[in-house]
């Protein structure tokens, strides 16, 4: 089958859109599930409004690292210029030490969908 130029462009766009949707679906987070995951996995050390073993999380999405006043961050985080977004949070939760060597968190979230859900919660109005 021969495709003219317009058909080729159209086919490419459809394929590209399908791939984008597929990738997005793989990483699309569910904030409701993320809240439950946050409460079961993160609240041993964190809360939204109070720094405890780890810093407070309210408003973390979109913020530069190490910005919670009064929390004793590691030098590695204090000197980092990373901004917390979906990509950086995913890398952080996957392996914080590989992402920012010298940091203090020893906890990881191995499952990509769990990470996406937790990130969706942190980005949701409830956590902003």
């Amino acid at each position, binding site marked *: 089958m021969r495709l003219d130029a317009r058909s080729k462009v159209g086919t490419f766009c459809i394929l590209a859109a399908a791939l984008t949707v597929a990738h997005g679906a793989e990483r699309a987070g569910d904030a409701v599930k993320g809240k439950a995951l946050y*409460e*079961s*996995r993160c*609240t*041993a*050390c964190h*809360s939204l409004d*109070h*720094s*405890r*073993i780890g810093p407070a999380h309210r408003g973390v999405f979109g913020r530069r690292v190490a910005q919670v006043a009064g929390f004793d961050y590691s030098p590695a985080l204090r000197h980092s210029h990373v901004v917390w977004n979906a990509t950086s949070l995913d890398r952080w939760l996957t392996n914080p*030490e590989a992402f920012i060597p010298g940091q*203090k*968190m*020893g*906890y*990881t979230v191995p499952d990509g969908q769990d990470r996406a859900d937790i990130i969706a919660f942190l980005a949701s109005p409830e956590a902003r």
Partner: protein
Amino acid sequence: MIKSSRPVSLSRRNALLAGGVTLSGAAVALLAGRPALAAKHADGHSAQKDAGVLNTALALEHEGINAYTLGAQSNLLEKPVLTLALKFQDDHKAHRDRLIAVLHTLGATPVQEKSLSEYASELEVSKLKTQTDVLNFAAGLEQGAVNAYLGIIPSFGDPALAKLAGQLASDETVHFAILSQALGRPLPAPLSFGV
């Protein structure tokens, strides 16, 4: 696991061996007076990183001990519940003491406890109005501790320290199960912790 053939201080060994934590890797190297060897495990994992994770665990134990103090001081707990809370607090003190001993053996500085008022503020204990509130609060902290300890197990370079984290998680699971029973909650589903 590395076995040291050199004599070591019994008192220092006991810090790790009491309760079944066996010596290996960096700990053995330190006890044998070889701090340079202690700096890295065989796979290159830094003993300093292990100490950092242990200090996170110690911070959790400090918080847990103070949370039970706050619960006990709330005057919301009936006598049998108060007795149980103080027993759990004693367990957390034992965890604290073990972690501090291991950290000292690794040559690390244990993280310091905060003031009771700081914990009260951070944990929002002023919101606790009934015994059930306190039990739910304690159960939440214990469940969080179980998941935290299970979550840090893969972070250790020294398997003996991973085992210690497993032991801590086991104790917290007992606490959580008893608190859940007191609250009338259903039994946890299989494989529901650490996920």
